[in-house]
């Protein structure tokens, strides 16, 4: 019985896989119907072969845990599913994905690929993004009781004197399997702070600070590693607005936000990072401000 079932499995498996032609059909639809800024969410999350075919204008999202990603920066989401793959469970996916989403039109099947468009009701229009504004920011190392050390912008990064790692730049990095486009910031060590100062910081409904240690370093628990502190301060008054701390061994994103009436009137902000021991404390930082959900679809 087992052998017969196994033979049936092998006999049927090739017919459950998509062909290149099916991918090209999906790509053609995305090429004509997707708007700049749309996302393609993969189910199962690991079916990344579509990256070979997808138009560059759409962001392909698929990582361990992406089923539950609110994808707040995307107003529309194309779900590209492969429901015929072994162990695919579309119902389980939809339990995670559907809350806060409404389907726009009927799903379309291209052989073993199924494409469906959703309006993302969790979408929050961005007012400010540290990643977008980094080029115009001022970056320096701040030492208590000493002069600031400037980190000039060279067109791709603000580079501080000394280590190549002492820079601030918008880069792709991993936080617990999730690709994030964020500010690379590494603490200079001791009591010194690496500061990215934004002169204009338009504030919407809320202000969000997210930070995490990059890649495998987040998992390290060596006693010599020290807590990393990331904060946002009012550039004019120095008052602390937001802050997170990342002790050693903590994976993923640490998050702090202020919204509504708790938001102070801010004109400029200092985004800073500090850790006594900078070893393996490479940090991916995002400071964003956005409006409430309910935007365009």
């Amino acid at each position, binding site marked *: 019985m087992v052998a017969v079932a196994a033979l049936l499995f092998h006999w049927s498996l090739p017919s459950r896989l998509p062909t290149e032609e099916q991918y090209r059909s999906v790509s053609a639809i995305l090429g004509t119907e997707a708007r700049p800024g749309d996302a393609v969410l993969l189910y199962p999350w*690991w079916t990344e072969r579509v990256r070979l075919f997808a138009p*560059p204008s759409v962001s*392909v999202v698929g990582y361990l845990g992406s089923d539950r990603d609110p994808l707040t920066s995307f107003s529309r989401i194309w779900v590209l599913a492969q429901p015929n793959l072994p162990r695919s469970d579309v119902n389980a996916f939809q339990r995670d994905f559907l809350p806060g989403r409404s389907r726009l039109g009927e799903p379309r099947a291209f052989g073993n690929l199924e494409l469906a468009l959703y309006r993302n009701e969790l979408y929050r229009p961005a007012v400010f993004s540290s990643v977008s504004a980094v080029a115009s920011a001022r970056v320096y190392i701040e030492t208590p009781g000493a002069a600031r050390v400037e980190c000039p912008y060279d067109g791709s990064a603000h580079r501080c004197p000394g280590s190549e790692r002492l820079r601030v730049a918008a880069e*792709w990095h991993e936080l617990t399997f999730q690709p994030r486009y964020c500010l690379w910031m590494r603490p200079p060590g001791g009591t010194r702070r690496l500061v990215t100062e934004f002169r204009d910081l338009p504030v919407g409904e809320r202000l969000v600070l997210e930070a995490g240690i990059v890649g495998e370093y987040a998992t390290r628990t060596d006693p010599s590693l020290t807590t990393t502190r990331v904060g946002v301060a009012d550039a004019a008054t120095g008052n602390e607005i937001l802050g997170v701390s990342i002790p050693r061994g903590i994976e993923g994103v640490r998050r702090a936000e202020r919204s509504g009436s708790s938001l102070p009137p801010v004109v400029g902000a200092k985004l800073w990072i500090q850790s006594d021991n900078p070893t393996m404390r490479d940090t991916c930082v995002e400071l964003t401000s956005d409006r409430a959900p309910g935007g365009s679809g």
Partner: protein
Amino acid sequence: MKSFVSLARSHRDGLVALALFTAAFAVLFATQAPVGFVRDESVYFAAAESYARWFQLLFRDPSNALTDGAIVRAFDFNHEHPALMKILFGLSYLLFHEGLGLLKPAAAFRVPAFAVAALIPALIYLLSASLYDRRVGIWGAISFLLVPRQFFNSHLACFDVPIAAMWLLTVYMFWRAQEKSRGWLWCGLAFGLALATKHNGWFLPWVITPFALWRGWWLTRSSPAGREALYQIVGLFAGVGAQFLVLFASLGPQRFVEKIAPLSPATALAAALVAGSVWLLRRLARASEPAFRALSPLVAMALIGPAIFYLHWPYLWHHPIDRAAWYFEFHATHNHYAWFYLGKVLRAPPFPLEYVVVKTALTVPSSIFVPMALGLGAVVLRGALSLWPKLGSSVERPRFGEVLTAVNAIVPILIISHPDVPHFGGVKHWFAAMPFLAVLGGRSVCRAADFLSATLRARWSALHGWATAGPLIALTCAPALIATARVHPYGTSYYSELAGGLPGAATLGMQRQFWSNNVTAVLPWINDHAPPGTRLWLHEVNGFSFRDYQRNGMLRRDLQPAGGPEDAQMAAYQYHQEFREHEMNIWQSFGTRTPVTGLYLDETPQVIVYRRR
């Protein structure tokens, strides 16, 4: 009366075993070319070449070659593993590549690996045929190489399949020694080869000792003189062992090692053990020849095994104790590497207790795994039920050989299952269990065939035993054959039907591949598309492997190895859950998130190639 071991000794069985060996060797040789060079293998290639050069020096200038300086120059590289297989790889390279010019370097290095791997089907057949019948042997022999991960590893100039072969050989020789008066010698030699292959061999005495002692005790139940000699042998080993422990405890590990010299208490104890063992074994032989056959393999293992370990490895010749101590220390404190398992990246102990069993169930083709599990379960169940007084008479008590097989099917799995033992490396670290599981699996299949035959004989009385066994063997092996053919040469990516194949395993959150060899899939594309002199970063592929791909004509020689995406123009990323940051570094450095090609096995991303914009 049926003999205790009832060994398959017929000329025909020998021929069948030889045929299995030859066929396995031929298949491995014929399918080796596309198999990539796993990270460790290229290191072993380099070590093997270094060791082979020392043998050339030995013939040219023996007095120089035998100095510690010359030995260290040749053998210091990769001294975390004994030298036997690497010496064979190196000599094969000298013969088939440099001498005869018949083979490319990699194939020449690998020839001994094929030969040692091919021993496994032959030995499975001989053990199964003697324990059960020939049909069991055929199923066990064929099924071993139809497990895709075992088939893949059998190609490699590494040690995981060789130690499985040597483990099986030692157990088989112990089994044979129960009837052969000089079987002890072969058992001791086989154990020595196991020690010279990989450190797993040091666990073998723990498996074999209970069987030897129990059998010796049982066989001397009516021989007081034999029983007395048996007790004296046990007492001698226990006494010497206790004194070593006292020395170790009183001196501490460091001084214990330093104090061992030609004229030292430790050496005197070892000499007393050798002399006492020989003398007492002669007494036992006079009192009870069968008990001698039970005990003598064990004593031979104790005396011959370490001697071969020392003699085969020139690195130990001038400093045996401290260098051996380093070797044991290295393996006792081995690093842990990240490993993706059921949606979690395992990085450090404690590891899940069920890991090995789950991983085996998900990586052995189901039509092979189920008979194995049933076969093992049947022996365990019969053993348990036979201890029950009310059922004891109605249940067939497992025979000595069956228990020996079952214990050897379990122990390698138990060793790796310990939550503190490193869990990386897929399934290769418990390969030693798989030949024994194959024997028990074959027994299950043949029992099913017998049941079918008995049912059919009501209608066709002249039905031959093979008439049902043949089709059943073919049926159970066919899915594994298809799976092996589909996944080759990417064996470390294979997952069984129970997992849902590779796509099902990816959804389950299982490690997609390891050891970097899958890169071979994209090398032809890179060769065709990379501009001359391109700086190429092959993620996870070490410098030795990069060189070997070029040396074996699989990668263009003008391509330059890059240290990372920052200084590369083209990159091939190997999908590992713990290495996601590396792919993002490529996106960042190359200014694109769109791959240009890749290896997607049944849709699962394995190797993804990017080109700088």
